[in-house]
């Protein structure tokens, strides 16, 4: 009966070991799907390559469907699954900064490390910038704290916000995702780029 950690079915060390394996698997899939190319990531913004969108949305809907089925089979207690708390202002501002870094750098943090590990120089600079950003944030934290912790909303989920059953929301997101895949493929045909 999951989650494994909350119910003490595995030790903290086993947890770290599993996280290590999952992390390696994640990095491997990122690299295999071509995410270590900054052009591929920037492609989402220009519409010539939407594989990032497709991979992440596929992961999301597979995970959603899987978790809900596991909950139905009593394999996991969804109330114990950690949900990132929402701080509205840091989400909005952080999201904008992350998006800007994404489009200028051509990586998100995970793919940045992925690309650095295969020796891409731009990725190494990207990671340097990442640490610089962390340093600035840490130094300015006393000033930023009210903003960082502003407008705390708890850990709301879409079904709670919409007042719908989990399954209905999942079905809706599946249709949204499939619609986005279709729109993505349309964009790829519309804005093709020969070589990148």
């Amino acid at each position, binding site marked *: *009966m999951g989650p494994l*950690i*909350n*119910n003490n079915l595995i030790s903290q060390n086993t947890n770290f070991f599993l*996280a290590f394996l999952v992390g390696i698997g994640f990095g491997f899939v*990122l690299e295999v799907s071509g995410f270590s190319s900054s052009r591929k990531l920037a492609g989402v913004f220009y519409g010539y390559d939407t594989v990032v969108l497709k991979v*992440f949305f596929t992961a999301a*809907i*597979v995970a959603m*469907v899987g978790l*809900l*089925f596991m*909950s*139905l089979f*009593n394999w996991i*207690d969804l*109330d*114990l*699954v*950690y*949900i*990132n*708390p929402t701080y509205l202002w840091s989400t909005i501002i952080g999201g904008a900064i992350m998006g800007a870094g994404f489009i200028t750098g051509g990586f*998100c*943090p*995970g*793919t940045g490390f992925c690309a650095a590990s295969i020796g891409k120089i731009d990725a190494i600079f990207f990671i340097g910038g990442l640490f610089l950003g962390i340093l600035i944030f840490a130094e300015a934290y006393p000033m930023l704290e009210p903003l960082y912790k502003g407008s*705390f909303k*708890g*850990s709301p989920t879409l079904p709670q916000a919409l007042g719908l*059953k*989990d*399954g*209905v929301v*999942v*079905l809706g997101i*599946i*249709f949204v995702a*499939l619609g986005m*895949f279709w729109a993505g493929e349309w964009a790829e045909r519309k804005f093709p780029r020969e070589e990148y």
Partner: protein
Amino acid sequence: MKPRIYLALLIIPLGLILAAVPANTTHPYKLSPQDLLEYVNSGMQYFTPDEVAQMIVSKDPSLVLIDVRSEDEYEKFHLPGAINIPLSSLLEDQWKDYLHQDLRYNVFYSNGTVNSNEAWMLTRQLGYENNYVLQGGLNYWVETIMNPTAPPSTSPDEEIAKYDFRKGASQALGGGAVMESSSQTAPDLPKIAPRPTKKKVDGGC
């Protein structure tokens, strides 16, 4: 057909099933009887009257006394600052934020310890932390804190010190006689945000 069509044809029916079946709301017991027995044997669920008296006297904000007796009994007498959650209504949603939190120590008490232990066991099974039981219940409280008996003069110093403390606490808490409750309703505790579950490393791409 392209594989993506197959995948779409697979995931849509799964989504339809999820939308159609009722959500699973059962929460299987998280604590095995073995774990519970170990916990009970260790006696870790108890706060002694002295500890509680100390916290009340020093106005420790981390203490929340929870009276699990009926409303009538609560109104006749309750410990200072205690709130009333009758055992029969323990599982109602309105109390969840009080019982499921990680800011304060909830100490259940009843006349003896049967009801308070039942409350403790229920919350323990639900996986709530920070709930405790007043050792010996109100009866023992009255005996030790309200009407402490002086130890013989040959007792070790600790016993004398304990007695002195109890005498002081008794005076501070209006002891000697069983005190009348000053307020009829529970004080408004500040709203507690739902308990965040264990921090984990955040995800992201």
